[in-house]
């Protein structure tokens, strides 16, 4: 029987209250939302918080809001809500691509975007999704909020920029006015609910037939989410096309650092990372151009 080590429990009634409790417990407390990453870690005693702060009652953290220049997603928004969101389907189809293959539908009823990002598992999909679309996250502490970019968010495996007395409250995705922008996520897994063998997220901003900007990130092929900045640089200023996307795929395959395990050897995972990058770029671009037409 797998049982977590003992802990004390409270239900937060406000974000400020949750943060005050985190500060009071000085690094020994953890926030719990869906619990589908944290509880398995606690059962295996890989995590042993002394105190859990349940934020499931904080409805003010559950939303998907569309503004002229950005989309804001509350940390407590569940996977199932991201999957079925009309706003995201229209503006950021990468979320539905990823959500269809994150865990299974029953787990998606509980798991949240904030929890997924804070778990910072290298094989987690939303971390690479948010990196590719140049999202930033809002981290709140007792002294107020700070906003940091996704490429500063991942500090190491299972470690993020969120401090002991802080919590992630919101994800912000910029929408560049003018030109067209779209995104896509591609993943290969052995079965529903397994970790990815490899996954690639891509975003492209196209202006006047040229790629004005791009984002590429990979899951499950490194110790943390892999931000393939060299692929984004290679794409910038060029005309979109298959040869270019294959070049970006080659760069992604070179720049990741997978380990061999039951899911496959290193060369296979590198190959997959490249192919999935190319495919994600192709889909993202087709979507962006369709928008322009």
């Amino acid at each position, binding site marked *: 029987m797998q049982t977590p080590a003992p802990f004390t429990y409270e239900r937060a009634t406000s974000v400020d209250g949750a943060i005050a409790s985190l500060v009071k417990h000085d690094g020994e407390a953890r926030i719990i939302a869906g619990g589908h990453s944290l*509880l*398995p870690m606690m059962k295996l005693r890989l995590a042993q918080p002394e105190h859990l702060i349940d934020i499931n009652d904080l409805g003010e953290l559950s939303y998907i809001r569309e503004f002229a220049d950005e989309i804001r997603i509350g940390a407590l928004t569940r996977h*199932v809500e991201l999957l079925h969101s009309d706003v995201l389907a229209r503006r950021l189809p990468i979320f539905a691509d990823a959500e269809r293959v994150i865990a299974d*539908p029953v787990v998606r*009823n509980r798991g949240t975007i904030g929890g997924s990002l804070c778990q910072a598992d290298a094989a987690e999909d939303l971390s690479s999704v948010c990196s590719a679309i140049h999202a930033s996250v809002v981290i709140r502490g007792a002294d107020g909020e700070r906003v940091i970019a996704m490429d500063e968010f991942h500090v190491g495996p299972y470690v993020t920029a969120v401090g002991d007395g802080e919590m992630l409250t919101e994800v912000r995705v910029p929408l560049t006015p003018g030109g067209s922008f779209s995104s896509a996520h591609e993943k290969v897994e052995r079965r529903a*609910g397994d970790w990815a063998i490899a996954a690639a997220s891509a975003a492209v901003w196209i202006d006047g037939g040229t790629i004005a900007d791009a984002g590429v990130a990979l899951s499950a092929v490194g110790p943390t989410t892999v931000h393939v900045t060299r692929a984004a640089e290679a794409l910038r200023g060029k005309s979109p096309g298959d040869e270019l996307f294959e070049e970006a795929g080659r760069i992604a395959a070179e720049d990741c650092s997978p380990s061999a395990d039951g899911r496959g050897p290193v060369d296979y995972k590198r190959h997959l990372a490249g192919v999935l990058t190319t495919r994600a770029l192709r889909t993202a671009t087709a979507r962006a151009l369709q928008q322009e037409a």
Partner: protein
Amino acid sequence: MQVTLNINGQAVSRDVEPRTLLVHFIRDTPGLTGTHWGCDTSNCGACVVQMDGQPVKSCTTLAVMCEGHEIRTVESLEVDGKLDPIQMGFHEMHALHCGFCTPGMLMTTRALLDETAARGRAGGAGGDAIPSEEEIRTAISGAICRCTGYKNIVGAVRWAAQYEAANRQGQEVS
């Protein structure tokens, strides 16, 4: 800590450690052992119950997190000796062998039928909304049957959906 859960419409109180999992609370306190405790790692789906109408894995939910929510287990499906249509479907289509996965399968697919019917009503399809084979397979992708495979389970869900659709149409006519 003292916890009171609403399980199948009954209030159940018990003093538990916060680390008590929902699956153990359900099986130990009201003694509802229909909910099966399987893999313990949220992979197999045998422990699925409904929380406010949504299927959730009770091995990966703390009992204390469920206070104030409505928990529904497999025991709630049969009422006064009459089986729920999803149970009838599993019976008709022989959708179980050893039966270990069945409680989770039933609660997962009962929720799918409710969701599909609600979507059908919202979309104007009325009682005709039947989940496709792909939708059924996706819905049960977090539930594992180690005996026989999924063909008869998919058939059972379609049987139940058609049975309920026919009943709803009958009601609308009369």
